[in-house]
Structure formats: structure tokens, C-alpha cells
């Protein structure tokens, strides 16, 4: 789990020191040139092309170029309503999620709060579980037939804005937490002391020092959560009720009404705000962060004495952690009862059913993840190496494109894939290949970013030193560079595996009767109100993911003792 933690920090957090642009030209190295060209072709086909096709589809009406759909856009509330809903939900979730993440990250880094390990664990939980797991719990507890609704208090209709707001906030606050924890860790706690020493009350010191210094991180996580909420598919599909959002509408238009054009227009509406947020995040916020500076950081990270401070922090974190624990507890509990809401007797049936009846989708998921994860990892390292250490025309473009899939909502990608690869020349619909390719290009950005950070941190003089001691360049790469980027590589693997096992928004378009995935199948059970069965499947999924991550961590820990990670 700590693994995926670092991964996300590497991607979402502040970038490594930006090395001077440079690098050796690839003209003298045919193999490197070939790799660059092949990667460029693949990126064009599997990242750019699907997006272009979505654009194209939105501009065609009955086979002719037209702005018909865009004209409708301003007349028809079927477009504007979901747009407004998605944007307002995204904004609300971004604010609330960032706030929770801020409280969590602050308490964990800058206070002497007890129970830090527990809270850290809580925050990583939503990251390794299927995205709609909390939604299932919310239905179990707060739905029309939910336990809390029936036994304690009726909070009204949970299907709609408030339900989604609650679920997405809890699901995505870990993003803010990870971004901000990196920011807080880079703030020397002595600065807070310095402010107090200058006469500022603890509160004033917080306002004058911590708040401004963490502002870039706050902006960053606002934008990232906004993107995540906009792209969220699983939760709205279960919980949105009459509150229509872009992702689900686009999905329904395409798969229900076969209205490709309408789906494409909704996709574009979804894509634009995401891209705008992504580019603001990437080119503005990233650069604005204050350098951690002056002198060496003070050796003592000891927190100043305070009687009630740590307990106030503890209480604040508990208020956030308890609902999460409650929701996950509900899923665990629900997976062991016969029929949620009707028959509470204990049973293991759902697990045996999951392992017997759903073994097909489980093994499909595992197989496709097992194939695509190593490819994603290796591809990520190669791209990272090319981007950092080699110079070739179009390098910046390659960097942007390879990161792009991170910002493009899965629904848009999925629609792009079915539009682009349904017919020759590239006919992939229904194959395992389309799922694998989708996984690879959607999950690569994390490995690439982590790899770039790692490679930038390798001082050229280390490589030169190796060469100077008589090692050939192959030996240098194998003995020096590879071990140093190994942590980034494994981070990329971990992230990619988690995403393969839990993602849904894009793959739901490309799965088929032959190749189905467990997340899609869980969603089916939720839609049929088989909540206990869905819970059991979620649990199995979480256990598998946790097990693989643990094994990966153990393996990495054995090969690389005492390594400081990215």
C-alpha cells in the first residue's frame, strides 16, 4: 500500500527538479531512434486518434459535416443540464475533498497526533478499492432500504447530488492528501516556530506561513480532484438517480440509444474542462511552487510541546476516518449476510459464489492485468528515458501526449476506442488486445512520470563515474541506471496493476462477452440490487490487490534495501 502511495505522490505531487534541457542526440543511435519512432506511432494511434475521432463524430450529422449537434447544445437541456451538473459536482467535490485532504495531511505531517499509521491506512483504502465501493456502502446504509434510513434517521433521497458529493469526496480526498502531504513534508516545521518566535499565535503562524506555502498544493489538488470527479463513472451510474452527469449520459447515449453523435458531443463537453484543468495544473501550478530553501533543513523534526493540539488533530482526523471505516465496514459486513436489508443471517455463500460463479471474470481481469502491467512498466521506463536523456524532434509533444491520458476522462477514451477500432483498418472490438492496449496507454503516465523523476535525480556524474572506472555503456546502464530507476519502475507496476483491477470508466466500452472484467460484472450486480454479492466481489478484489501490492513491496524491499524512494 505504501507502494501505491509513493507512486501517486510521484505523479500528482511536485515534479522532480527540472533538469536542463539537453541530452544526447539520437541520430547516431539507430536503436534509440527506432524506439522513439515506434512509440510515437503507437501514441498517435492509441492516444491521439481516438480523441480525433470523437471530435470528428461530434461534427457530423447524417454523414455530412455540420454543427447541428453543437447548435442543439444551446437549445437542448439534455446537454447543458449534465454539463452544469458535472461541473458543479466536480467543483463541490474538489473543494470538500481538498479540505479533508488538507486536514489529514497537515495533522499527519505537522502535528504530534497519535494514531498516524491508522489514519494513513484509512486514506490509502479508497485508492486500492474499486471506485464504486463506497457507493455500494452508501446504498446499504443510506439508501431507500438502508440500515440507517430504516433504523435511525431518514436523510432523504441519497440518489443525486448529495449522495454523489459524499461518495466522491470520500473517494477522492486521498488525492489531495497525497499531493499535500508531499507539500507539507517539504515545509520545514521550524518556519512555524519562527513565526511563533516572532510573536505570532499558533493560529496566526498557520495562516501566515503554512497556508501560503501550501497554496500551490491546494490549487493542484483542487484541479486534480475536479478532473477525477468529472471522470467518475462508476459512482454516478449507481447513485446519480435523476441527477444526470456527462459520463453516464454519454455512456447511455452510445450504448442505449446508439446515438454516436450525441455521445461524442457529451464527450467533448467532458473533455474540455478536464483538459483545461490539466494544463493549468501542469503548466501553471507546477511551476509556482516555492523552492524549499535556505540552509539545510533543521535536523530536529521534533514538534513543539502542546497539550491539546495533538488531540484536536486526532479528533479532526477521526471525524473523517470514521465514515470511511463505517462504509468499508458495511461492505465487509454486507458480504457475509444472506440478503442485505432482508435476511441478516451469516453466510459464506457470496464468497463461494464469487469464486465459483465469477471465476471467469476474475481470471480475465487478472490475466489482462498480468499481461498489460509489465508492458506498461517497461514502456513507461523507455519513454521516461527517452524524454529525459535523449533529444529528438517532437520530444515535448511526446511528453504532453504521453501524460494526456491521465487527464482524459475514461468515458471519452472508451468512446474513442469503440469508434476508432470497430472497423478495419484497425479492428479490435471484442478482442483481448483492445482491453490490454487501453490499459497500457491509460496507465502509463504514472510510470513515465515516476521514471522521469528518478532518471532526473540520477546525476550524470554517476554514469560518468561508472564509465570512468572502465564500465562500458551497456554495463553502466545495467549496473547503475537500472537499479536506480527500479523503484520508479515498481511504482509504475503497482499503480498500473491497481488501475487494471479497479478501473471501469473506459473499459466498460471495450469489454465483450468473451473478455469481461470483474469491475464491470460487480456493477451489474449492484444494478440488480444484489448488494451482498457485489460486496463479496469487492472484498475479493481488494484482497487480491492488497496481496499483489504487498508481494511487490516485499520483493522490492528485498532487492533494494535501504533505498530512498522517489
Amino acid at each position, binding site marked *: 500500500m505504501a507502494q501505491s502511495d509513493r507512486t501517486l505522490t510521484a505523479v500528482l505531487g511536485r515534479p522532480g527538479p527540472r533538469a536542463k534541457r539537453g541530452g544526447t542526440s539520437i541520430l547516431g543511435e539507430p536503436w534509440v531512434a527506432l524506439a522513439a519512432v515506434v512509440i510515437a506511432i503507437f501514441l498517435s494511434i492509441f492516444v491521439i486518434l481516438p480523441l480525433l475521432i470523437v471530435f470528428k463524430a461530434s461534427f457530423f450529422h447524417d454523414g455530412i459535416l455540420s454543427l447541428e449537434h453543437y447548435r442543439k447544445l444551446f437549445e437542448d437541456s439534455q446537454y447543458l443540464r449534465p454539463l452544469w451538473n458535472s461541473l458543479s459536482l466536480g467543483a463541490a467535490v474538489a473543494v470538500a475533498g481538498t479540505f479533508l485532504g488538507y486536514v489529514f495531511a497537515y495533522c499527519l505531517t505537522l502535528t504530534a497526533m497519535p494514531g498516524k499509521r491508522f489514519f494513513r491506512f484509512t486514506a490509502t483504502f479508497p485508492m486500492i478499492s474499486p471506485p464504486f465501493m463506497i457507493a455500494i456502502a452508501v446504498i446499504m446504509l443510506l439508501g431507500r432500504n438502508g440500515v440507517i434510513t430504516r433504523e435511525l434517521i431518514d436523510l432523504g433521497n441519497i440518489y443525486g447530488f448529495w449522495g454523489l458529493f459524499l461518495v466522491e469526496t470520500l473517494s477522492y480526498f486521498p488525492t489531495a492528501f497525497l499531493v499535500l502531504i508531499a507539500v507539507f513534508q517539504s515545509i*520545514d516545521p*521550524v*518556519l512555524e*516556530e*519562527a*513565526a*511563533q*518566535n*516572532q*510573536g*505570532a*499565535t*499558533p493560529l*496566526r*503562524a498557520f495562516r*501566515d*506561513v503554512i497556508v*501560503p*506555502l501550501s497554496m500551490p498544493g491546494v490549487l493542484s489538488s483542487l484541479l486534480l480532484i475536479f478532473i477525477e470527479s468529472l471522470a467518475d463513472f462508476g459512482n454516478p451510474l449507481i447513485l446519480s438517480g435523476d441527477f444526470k452527469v456527462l459520463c453516464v449520459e454519454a455512456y447511455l447515449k452510445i450504448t442505449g440509444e446508439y446515438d454516436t453523435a450525441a455521445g461524442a458531443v457529451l464527450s467533448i463537453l467532458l473533455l474540455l474542462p478536464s483538459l483545461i484543468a490539466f494544463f493549468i495544473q501542469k503548466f501553471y501550478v507546477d511551476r509556482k511552487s*516555492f*523552492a*524549499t*530553501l*535556505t*540552509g*539545510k*533543513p*533543521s*535536523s*530536529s523534526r521534533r514538534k*513543539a*510541546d502542546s497539550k491539546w493540539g495533538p488531540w484536536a488533530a486526532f479528533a479532526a482526523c477521526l471525524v473523517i476516518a470514521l465514515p470511511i471505516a463505517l462504509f468499508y465496514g458495511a461492505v465487509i459486513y454486507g458480504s457475509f449476510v444472506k440478503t442485505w436489508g432482508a435476511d441478516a443471517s451469516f453466510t459464506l455463500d457470496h464468497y463461494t459464489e464469487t469464486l465459483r460463479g465469477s471465476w471467469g471474470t476474475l481470471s480475465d481481469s487478472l490475466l489482462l492485468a498480468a499481461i498489460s502491467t509489465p508492458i506498461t512498466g517497461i514502456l513507461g521506463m523507455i519513454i521516461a528515458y527517452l524524454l529525459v536523456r535523449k533529444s529528438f524532434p517532437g520530444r515535448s509533444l511526446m511528453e504532453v501526449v504521453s501524460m494526456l491520458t491521465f487527464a482524459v476522462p475514461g468515458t471519452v477514451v472508451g468512446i474513442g476506442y469503440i469508434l476508432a477500432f470497430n472497423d478495419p483498418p484497425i479492428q479490435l472490438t471484442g478482442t483481448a488486445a483492445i482491453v490490454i492496449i487501453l490499459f497500457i496507454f491509460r496507465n502509463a503516465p504514472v510510470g513515465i512520470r515516476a521514471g522521469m523523476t528518478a532518471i532526473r535525480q540520477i546525476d550524470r556524474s554517476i554514469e560518468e563515474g561508472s564509465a570512468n572506472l572502465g564500465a562500458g555503456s551497456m554495463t553502466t546502464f545495467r549496473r547503475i541506471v537500472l537499479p536506480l530507476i527500479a523503484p520508479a519502475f515498481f511504482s509504475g507496476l503497482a499503480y498500473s496493476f491497481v488501475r487494471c483491477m479497479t478501473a471501469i470508466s473506459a473499459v466498460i466500452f471495450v469489454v465483450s462477452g468473451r473478455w469481461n472484467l470483474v469491475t464491470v460484472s460487480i456493477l451489474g450486480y449492484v444494478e440488480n440490487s444484489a448488494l451482498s454479492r457485489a460486496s463479496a466481489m469487492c472484498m475479493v478484489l481488494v484482497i487480491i490487490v492488497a496481496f499483489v501490492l504487498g508481494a511487490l513491496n516485499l520483493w522490492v524491499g528485498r532487492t533494494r534495501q535501504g533505498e530512498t524512494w522517489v
Partner: protein
Amino acid sequence: MGLTLENVVKEFQLKSGMQFRAVDGVSLDLSPGKFHTLLGPSGCGKTTLLRMIAGFETPTQGRILHRERDISQVPAHERGFPMVFQSYALFPHLTVEENVAYGLKVRKVPREEIRKRLDKILKLLDLEANLGKHPAQLSGGQQQRVALARALVLEPEIILFDEPLSNLDAKLRVTMRDEIRSVQKRVGITAIYVTHDQEEAMAISDQIVILNKGKVEQAGAPLDIYRKPVSEFVARFLGSANVVLIARPGGEIMGQRYEIPASAKSVVIRAESLKISRGQGRHSAIIENAIFLGGRTHYQLTCNGEKLSADVPLRDDAVFDCGEQVAFDLDLGQLHFLG
């Protein structure tokens, strides 16, 4: 009265659950207007002591009195003892001017008054050219001066320094050291200064407090401590000293009999007072090693089984080779005995 510490104790809970006494019953008088240095090896409790004075730590026992008022429970922001931190702790998002003015703004000092004080202090510390810069744009020495200005601008009664020079290179360290001392004298402020560098401590202080394992070993003027260390620890920590055991019952030092007070157990021989020559003397020694240091040479010798060091100023007739036999006398009047 300045600042008085009464039997101050600070205990920390270690990870293992054990209690660790970082400061173990320190009592001190820190008189106003003077430069006091807390000196000791790392882990001796000097920084913890300073942090208690600043209000970042609360004493487990004992009292800290300022003008006879117990301030040991007063929170840091109400103490008014500005500190110059080891890492300077400048606010990275504020300019030099904003950094220095921060404490005044917090205190709601009127704007014209802030302006006046800023001008004065920035001039005093030669920072006028850097007003609008951010800390990251400054050199280490300039950052150090901003940190000093930020503390001094409050015109405090007491100013605290936590190893402020340890991040500077050797030359700059000496310059800044002298600058701090001269500013302190000019302003007439009480300074409490933590360092592990004995040379720095001697150069700068009116009073040195030597700490060891959380306890005060000795406190006094630099020259007094240097001449009359109360323990072997102090003798060895301050300057370069030979501490030789006195053999009883005869009262012999390195095989030779001297008239020695009966209570003395060992004798402190400063390296620079060991005057070796090729001539005659009561003690003879062999040169084991010679380290040329420019104006003087540091010799390591053995005499009667005892390892000694001697610092000899550079003179043509006093350059010895390894393995050479030399002689010296001990001037009883210059020796310092330890009980």
C-alpha cells in the same frame, strides 16, 4: 535581573518508552547585556535548553525566571525572545523586507514606525540592496543577516542564537561571528548563543556555559574556564590540553617528583605551554608525529609512557623531526590541578 534558570529538567519519552533526560537540573544566571554561550558536544542538551528559553519546550521540572517572573509556562509567541535559527528559518514566500517586518506587523506596530525601524536595521546589517528579494535569491551570508535583522528589529531584551553559523563556510563564519558580536555590543542586548564550536565560543562570549550530558560542567568567563577548568572534560573540550594523572603517594608527574597539593589527582598541561627544546630539561620525550599548521606546529610525543601534545610557534630553532628526542620542564606556577 536578566534570565535565571532554576534546576531546569527536561525529559523526553524515547521510542522505546524509556525516559531520556536531555537537560538534567540546570541552574544558571544569564546577566543582562552580556553574551552567554551554551557550549557542548552534540546531545549535551544545549539546544533543548535554548528551546525551553524560547518557549518551544516546557521544562519537566524547574523554573525559568525573567525579571523574577516565572515564564516557563508562557507560550512561545508571548515571550518576546527572538531567535536566529540554525537553518535561518526565513519565510520563503516573503521578501527580505517582509521577513524582517513580520514580527512588527504581528505586534501591530504603526506603519511609520515599522518603516523607521526597518531602515535602521537594514542599514546596520547592510541589507538595503536586497529589500525586494526572496530568501532563495540570497547567499548564505545574506540570509544569515536577514535572520539577524528579523530578530534585532524587534529591539528585544534578549536574543537567542541556535548554532547560527554552522551552515556557512569557514571564512564567512569568522566574519559573521565578529559581526554578531559587534552588533550585540553596540545594541547592548543580552545574547544566548548555542554552539558546539569551542573556538567560536571563546571568541564571542562574555560567559561560556559548558554542558555535558544535560548538566552544567562549568560556567564562567572564557579566559577563566580556559585557565582553570574544573574537570578533565572541560580541559579537553576547550582548546588542546594534556591531562596527566599524578602518581601517588609520591606526587609524581611522568616519573618526576613535584611539590603538589595533596588533593590534586591530575594536572592540566596546555599544549601551548609545553615548551619542548633540544636542550636540557627534567622530562625527555620522543616526537611521534608533527602536523604543520602554518603559524605553529602541532607535535604528538610520548614521555614516560604518556601521550602528549605540544603546540610550538614557528621558529627556526624549534622545528623537530619525527623520532627526535626533546626535553622540557614543567613550570609549576603555570599548571592547573584537578581534584
